[in-house]
């Protein structure tokens, strides 16, 4: 059963690499942030799979922190700290 999880993790990390092309291509800054967003979600999925593969439940907390900070990155993209845009 871990074999399938490893395969899925491998597939996800390859998709991650493909998604990076969008960062490279752009063309707008919004596209790049979208790519970060997808990378973040893919990373969370890989972490979930890894937590089964290497039997390390602590990785679930790492995934939790990623999810929490994904929103922080997104808001940092659209706002200056002083408020407004």
């Amino acid at each position, binding site marked *: 059963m871990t074999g399938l999880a490893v395969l899925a993790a491998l597939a996800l990390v390859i998709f991650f690499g493909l998604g990076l092309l969008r960062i490279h291509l752009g063309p707008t800054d919004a596209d790049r942030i979208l790519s970060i967003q997808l990378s973040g979600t893919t990373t969370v999925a890989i972490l979930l799979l890894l937590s089964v593969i290497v039997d390390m439940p602590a990785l679930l*907390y790492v995934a939790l922190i990623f999810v929490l900070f994904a929103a922080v990155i997104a808001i940092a993209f659209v706002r200056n700290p002083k408020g407004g845009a």
Partner: protein
Amino acid sequence: MILFDGVLALLIVVLAWRCVTAGDLYLGIVVFIVMGLMLALSWARLDAPDLALAEAAIGAGLLGVLLLSTWRALPGHRRQDRDHPPARKAVRWLAGVASVAFGLVMAALLHALQPDEDAAGALALGRLTEAGVEQPVTAVLLNFRSYDTLLEMGVLLMALIGALLARTPLAPYGAATDDGTDSPLIPVLATTFTPLLLLVGAFLVWAGAYGPGGAFQGGAVLGGAGVVLVLCNRLQGAPEAGILLRLLLVLGVKVFILAGLLMLPLEGAFMAYPPGLTYPIMIAIEFCLATSIAVSLLLLFTGTHGVRVPER
């Protein structure tokens, strides 16, 4: 699994290469953030969940927010290379050759690494029962090598003082302006994610005694809660710090030194704790350190002496 590791390592190298050579500075920053994600993954693979936690909160989270916000704060024409073009072609080639040679030497050295029976870590693991906490990394940080951690807190304060001396706050003082472009979801974000970040941060500090977690990771997540509040306009920079904030800032260092000094007559050495009391002292020190780290990181983000709640 070797294939997974190989793809991961390859992606990290490609990202690092794009990060340092990207034509557009913004692209470099975005690539750096994504590299933080990959690094956290690879550290999870390298049996270091503690570091994956820290990297997730700091490398991919706080550092990315800081870089993005600074880039946005720069005047438009300063965001590109025009005034700072890359070095001349000859220098580039020279640097390229030198760094390839350096990389090859490092790779050979790392490949030749041999397992070492006498590592200091073996000693630390063997005496873990004396440390009062079950988690080896926390034991090393707070007990076996507590001087390092104390001095590190000093470095953190120094960096904060340095940043304040530059007097270029990211979150300027003065009334926050709400120009009507605010999304209705911003308050939702502030009210949903801040309490969760606080909760998870506090949990991580406490969990550091038993498993992955600890003062640094927890402190970084708590600091992240403050950053969300600043970004959502619930907090803003203030030119002066209140007494409470200053106290929180040095709380970690003070409590650390105090605990070390108070036990001096009992144990005969600085920062040696009596066996029965080790666990409560550790937890107290951890929470104080985490608070100070959180406040320092928040102030490093805003670049101001203090923070206050804006008047509505």
